[in-house]
């Protein structure tokens, strides 16, 4: 009887509860304090939105936030395109010359310390005499995040049943048509999840952006980082809360999309 050896012990429950509390309490506290009326971060002065107002009156912060959103949207889009192509090449391309170099280049940035990626890209941009700013940060973020997109799409693509594509080809599709009309709709949720992961990673990065940006085009994390080094400011709590809310919306959309596609796949299965 499985229950005898596999049931949850009080130890397991305690470990889980403490673990989840550890993961979530700091974020909850940060969100609560962003609504604190008091200037002293730790003294509770009642509920208030004044730090949000402060943010919307802070020109430099707003510019940085706008810059970050643009970089995140553009780099996530390019990264999704390139990452999906890379995943298709890796999963469906069988063997080609330089395949292991290709997969190595795609996996290395996942664990590469950001200081190295940032430094090396900056040296490239300096050598190319590229003007540093929006595009250099976007290219740098694309390079990092396309690797994450590749992994997400690759795992979905590898789990797909190839006989569907083969059936489409038996019915007269060429390989490209078969891919576009059969495979692509099935991997769309993974592609969407990849885009959202790329978007949030770009919105989060401070190290690579610090290396590759130019004067006058700081991203939101760079500004937050320089403020945080000077100490805690309630306005930062408000900004962080808004970023968390934005990411929460992204996650909800991503999980709804994957649920939707799962139920579609199930309803399509009997056909």
């Amino acid at each position, binding site marked *: 009887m499985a229950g005898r050896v596999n049931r949850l012990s009080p130890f397991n429950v305690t470990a889980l509860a403490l673990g989840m509390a550890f993961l979530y309490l700091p974020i909850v*506290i940060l969100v609560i304090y962003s609504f604190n009326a008091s200037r002293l*971060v730790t003294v509770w002065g009642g509920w208030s939105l004044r730090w949000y107002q402060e943010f919307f009156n802070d020109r430099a912060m707003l510019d940085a936030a706008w810059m970050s959103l643009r970089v995140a949207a553009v780099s996530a889009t390019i990264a999704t395109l390139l990452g999906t*192509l890379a995943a298709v090449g*890796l999963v469906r391309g069988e063997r080609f010359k330089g395949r292991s170099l290709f997969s190595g280049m795609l996996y290395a940035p996942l664990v590469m310390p950001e*200081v190295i990626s940032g430094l*090396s890209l900056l040296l490239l941009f300096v050598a190319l005499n590229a003007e540093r700013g929006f595009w250099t940060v976007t290219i740098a973020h694309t*390079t990092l995040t396309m690797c994450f997109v590749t992994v997400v799409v690759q795992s979905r693509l590898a789990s797909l049943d190839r006989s569907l594509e083969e059936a489409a080809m038996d019915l007269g599709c060429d390989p490209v048509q078969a891919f576009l009309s059969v495979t692509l709709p099935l991997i769309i949720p993974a592609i969407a999840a990849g885009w959202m992961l790329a978007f949030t990673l770009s919105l989060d990065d401070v*190290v690579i952006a610090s290396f590759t940006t130019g004067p006058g085009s700081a991203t939101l994390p760079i500004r937050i980082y320089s403020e945080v080094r000077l100490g805690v400011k309630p306005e930062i709590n408000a900004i962080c809360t808004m970023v968390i809310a934005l990411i929460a919306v992204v996650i909800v959309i991503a999980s709804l999309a994957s649920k939707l596609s799962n139920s579609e796949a199930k309803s399509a299965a009997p056909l």
Partner: protein
Amino acid sequence: MSTRRIFAQPARYAAIAPYLWMVLFFLVPFGFVLKISLSQTAIAQPPYVPVFDFTEGWAAIKAAFAQLSLDNFKLLVSDNLYLSSYLRSLIVAVTSTLILLLIGYPIAYGMARLPQRWQAIAMMLVIVPFWTSFLIRIYAWINILQHDGLLNTVLLALHLVSSPVVWLSTDTAMYIGIVYSYLPFMILPLYATLSKMDPALLEAASDLGASPQQAFWLVTFPLSLPGVGAGALLCFIPIVGEFVIPDLLAGSSSMMIGQTLWLEFFTNKDWPVASAAAIALLALLVPPLLLYDRLQRRTLEGGR
């Protein structure tokens, strides 16, 4: 001609664009790091003397090779600042990985024992913090750990301490930050191996007279070692090069290699030494990276 073959052709072409992108923006930049790590520092913009100048033909390149200098690397080995930050990076990474294992294992183990439908929710709960901003999560801890922060308020209220404890700018704060940030990376691979384990093995152990503790140490733990290895490497490798967490939470008395690189680059404007530090850091990471790659391949092949 099989269908697979027909597919392989266009799929290969799909790889061309990302391939070129990665060569241009990942591989080539490393060439620049290597090149600049071998050149001399200069007070100029950019602040180094280029070693290679391809416009002057082969003779110039040959002459340049003669000038290559290992001075920056000699500096790294001889200067105490670099050696100690190198060593500190290793110590911090090893210590944090051990703490992560101690904390992450019980959580992953508890997750694997949850009823099936709860497991998916628990997994989601572990992944979500990975999506929320890394910088924000560190900032959240500054809120808690500062002098008149929540932790000190609670400790004082409970009369556990008589005066506020200094948490910020200490190694304790840095370890809390690292463990907090990397916990999902440790839990997920551990959970992946633990949840795949066949419960029949534990039943067999208990039928043969093993106590739950014995069964854990003799059956569960040895079988989870691939997950332990994957989780440990997945945490160790990026922690070695960590910059933001030690910079915001630890004191400034000793630095990790990532901080030294940052300081050389942004404050001292010594690009050649920063590049040499990057190469040295990379060299430190190659063995664990290869180990991780091997482990992943073995797990993938074992899974088939």
